[in-house]
């Protein structure tokens, strides 16, 4: 008797739970699952827009082959974008940690500083960013004064000088990506027990030592979160060259939806691979530290 009641109770809870999340399940099936399936299918097809709707004709891997072998722009744009990400993400994360450490100090006007550093999260839209970039409001004013850009162009190979100059020219916008990351670090830093600092200070630890021995271990998981967040943030940001190219191809008669879908899938697989690489690197390091601690 009792057992049966429990089973019923459990089943009822499960049904209620499913009912609560049912809007998401439906939405996921309609606006995620089906589009994902459809877009995969299109990426392997030639897509025709007819008066009745969409007509697809399977062509195998042709779209993908075209992207890598024949398209004059795609590979180059993609590589440039990956290089951009590889340089920009560490800048964002280190800058965010730096600012979070500064704001975490017991200082006056902490709220004001926090408000300043979070402001870009609120006002950045792709179009506004483009505008700022094209008006030259995005680069550090001193860069042009001291000829740093020319120096880089002279001393590095063009394959890397391009992305680096690109980053320098929109340096402030890249810093602008770090608002959320700063707050995530700040939340992490506030978990460090104040007494730990006091104890370390009594033992004669310098701020430098405190950073490496106390703060960094605590902040470490947040570094991973922030790297992942930054990568996703940059990848879904709507004004990068690859995304613009995908959109342009959608409405081109010669290439169309099929080719645009293939580009989108290549783009997504690259994010996915990069995220997995990041996770692998970091989880390995974590293990290494564990062994060191135990041994």
């Amino acid at each position, binding site marked *: 008797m009792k057992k049966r009641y429990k089973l019923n109770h459990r089943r009822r809870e*499960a049904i*209620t739970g499913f009912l609560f999340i049912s809007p998401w399940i439906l939405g996921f099936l309609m606006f995620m699952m089906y589009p994902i399936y459809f877009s995969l299918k299109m990426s392997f097809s030639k897509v025709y827009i007819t008066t009745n709707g969409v007509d697809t004709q399977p062509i195998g891997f042709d779209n993908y082959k075209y992207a890598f072998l024949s398209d004059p722009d795609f590979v180059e744009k993609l590589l440039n974008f990956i290089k951009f990400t590889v340089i920009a993400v560490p800048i964002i994360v280190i800058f965010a940690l730096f600012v979070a450490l500064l704001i975490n100090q017991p200082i006056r006007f902490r709220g004001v500083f926090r408000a300043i550093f979070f402001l870009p999260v609120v006002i950045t839209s792709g179009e*506004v960013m483009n*505008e700022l970039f094209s008006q030259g409001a995005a680069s550090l004013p001193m860069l042009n004064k001291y000829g740093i850009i020319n120096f880089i162009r002279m001393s590095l190979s063009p394959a890397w000088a391009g992305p680096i100059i690109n980053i320098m020219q929109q340096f402030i916008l890249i810093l602008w990506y770090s608002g959320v990351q700063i707050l995530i670090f700040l939340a992490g830093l506030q978990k460090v027990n104040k007494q730990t600092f006091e104890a370390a200070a009594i033992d004669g630890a310098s701020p430098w030592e405190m950073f490496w021995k106390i703060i960094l271990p605590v902040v470490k998981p947040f570094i991973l979160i922030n790297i992942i967040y930054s990568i996703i943030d940059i990848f879904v940001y709507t004004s990068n060259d690859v995304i613009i190219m995908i959109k342009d191809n959608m409405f081109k008669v010669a290439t169309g939806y099929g080719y645009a879908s293939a580009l989108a899938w290549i783009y997504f697989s690259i994010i996915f691979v990069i995220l997995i690489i990041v996770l692998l690197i970091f989880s390995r390091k974590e293990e290494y530290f564990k062994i060191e601690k135990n041994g």
Partner: protein
Amino acid sequence: MKNITFAKKTNFFLKHINFDKIKIALLGRQGNDGIIFKTIVYYLLISVGFIYLYPILFIVSQSFKSLEDLLDPTVVWMPRRLYLQNYIRAFYSLKYIETLAVTMINSFSPAIIQMFSCALVGYGFARFRFPFKNILFGIVLFTFIIPTQVIMIPLFITFFKLNLLGSPLPNIIQAIFAGGLKSALFILIYRQFFTTIPPSLIESAKIDGANELKIFYKIVLPISIPAMVVVFLFSLVWHWNETYMTSLFLGDKLTTLPLKLQTLNDEYSRLYLSGSVRQRIDINESIRLAATMLIILPLLILYLFAQKWFVEGIERTGITGE
């Protein structure tokens, strides 16, 4: 003779200075509370803060410049006179009132809906045990990393077939189903928040005979207002700034403020360049930046009032995964 007295005097002087106190004042007890350290911290914060605000200061200063000031290299930050013509021209070129209204409808309605629908789903994940729960929640998080570019073409076709393009409805419908812009993040925020509600509170309501839905909106939602405000604000701001899907969904019929920036040149020349030759003034950076300022102004005002919610929300709702 003189030297000896001087030495004596200095000796006396040195004896009466407490070096430890000075050292503590300058370097601090813990290495981070001395004057030197604090000066460095403030110096860094102010200079980094300036770099951070540089684009905004640039917009403000540039947008008030008349053409002469703009062309004059000696005028850097402060325009010679307050020139409001840029703003007036930008205001008309943007069709400000009309576009602002569209932008507001297009961002407020999905934000309000997402605030409720994601709460419902987040509550489902936080409170009930059901099979495949972890897998399903994993899928929720996974949707966060799928770029819209992958699904946007089918979505576009779907809403085209439903004849909903050219209206805010595609965004609204997705919001109803706890989908759309960054809803995975909102579901996560809610889930984290709801797990902090003490179960005894919900149990007692249950004993009083309330059903689950009633408990949700009579007890859970009222104490979750902080989380709801955070979700609403972020959803609002992100919908406001979103231009990629919005431009696809709205098409040519409607346009939001950020989108209007793309067509500003055409609109401007249509308005101001068709007149008589004497009045012709080409669009210049100042006018474009005045338009940019008008576009971010509503968000700046919102941020001014709701700043605390934005900044503290991330910590308070435990998005960092406690």
